C-alpha cells in the first residue's frame, strides 16, 4: 500500500518536474526543475531496493552534474528569456511518443517471451551496496577501469576546452590594458 502511494506520488512529481524542464522558457527554472526531478528519481531506486544506485543518483546527478551545469551557466547569458521557434508541436509530440513506445517495446520484448535467467542473482542476506561491490569488482572490473579512464579523459577535455584564456584576469587590468588586449585579438 505504502509502496503504491510512494510510487504514484513520485511518478507524478518526476513527470511534472521533467515537463517543466522541457517546456519552460527560463533556463534557471529548467535547471532547478531538472535537479528536483533527479532527486525524485532516486526515490524509485530506494523503493526498488537499489540503495547504492539511489545514493549514486543523488551524489553524481544532483550533486556533480547539476553543479557542473550551474557553473557552466555562469558563462552563458541565462537571465534573458529563451526565444525559440517551435514550428509544429503536434508532430513533435506524436513522434516523441511513438519513438518512446517503440524503444520500450524493443526493450521489453525479451522479457515478455519469458525464460530469462539471472546472470548475477541478487543474494539474500547481504546488503545491496556490498553485493554490488562484489559483482562490480569481480565480473565488471574491466568496464569499471575503462569508465575511470573515460572520466579522466573527459575531465581533461573539459578543462582544456573551457579553460582557454582563463589565465587572463580582466578585473586586475586597467582599461588601457584591456583595450590593447582586445585590439590585438581583433587583429589576430
Amino acid at each position: 500500500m505504502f509502496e503504491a502511494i510512494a510510487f504514484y506520488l513520485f511518478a507524478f512529481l518526476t513527470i511534472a518536474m521533467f515537463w517543466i524542464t522541457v517546456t519552460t522558457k527560463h533556463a534557471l527554472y529548467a535547471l532547478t526543475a531538472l535537479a528536483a526531478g533527479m532527486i525524485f528519481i532516486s526515490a524509485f531506486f530506494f523503493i526498488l531496493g537499489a540503495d547504492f544506485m539511489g545514493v549514486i543518483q543523488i551524489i553524481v546527478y544532483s550533486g556533480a552534474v547539476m553543479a557542473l551545469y550551474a557553473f557552466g551557466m555562469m558563462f552563458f547569458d541565462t537571465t534573458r528569456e529563451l526565444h525559440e521557434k517551435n514550428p509544429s508541436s503536434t508532430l513533435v509530440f506524436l513522434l516523441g511518443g511513438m519513438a518512446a513506445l517503440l524503444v520500450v517495446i524493443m526493450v521489453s520484448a525479451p522479457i515478455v517471451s519469458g525464460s530469462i535467467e539471472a546472470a548475477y542473482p541478487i543474494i539474500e542476506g547481504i546488503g545491496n551496496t556490498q553485493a554490488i561491490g562484489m559483482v562490480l569488482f569481480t565480473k565488471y572490473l574491466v568496464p569499471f577501469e575503462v569508465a575511470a579512464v573515460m572520466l579522466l579523459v573527459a575531465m581533461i577535455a573539459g578543462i582544456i576546452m573551457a579553460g582557454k584564456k582563463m589565465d587572463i584576469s580582466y578585473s586586475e587590468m586597467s582599461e588601457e590594458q584591456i583595450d590593447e588586449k582586445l585590439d590585438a585579438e581583433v587583429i589576430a
Partner: protein
Amino acid sequence: MEITLTHYLVLSTVLFAIGLVGVMRRKNLLMLFFATEILLNSVNIALVAISHYHGDFTGQLFAFFIIAIAASEVAVGLGLLVLWFKRENKIDLDIMTSMKG
C-alpha cells in the same frame, strides 16, 4: 494494490517521451542537454526496475555505467558549449550552419 514491473516501464516510457519531445522542440543547446539527461534517467529507471523484478544485478550495474557516461558527456559537452559561446555569443542550434549541410 501492487506495483509491478509494468508500472515502472510505463513511467519510463512517459519520461522517455518527455525527453524526446524536449530534444525535438528545443533550439537552445543547453536545454537540449537537459533533455538528454531526462532520456538517460528514464532508461536508468527501467534498468533498475527490471533488475529488481528479475532478481539480477546486471541492470543496476548498467545503470551505474550509464551514470558514469552521462557525467563525462556533460564535462565534454559543456566544454564545447563554452567554447562555442565564446566565439558566437549564442548557443542556438539554428545558427550552427557553418557546414552548409
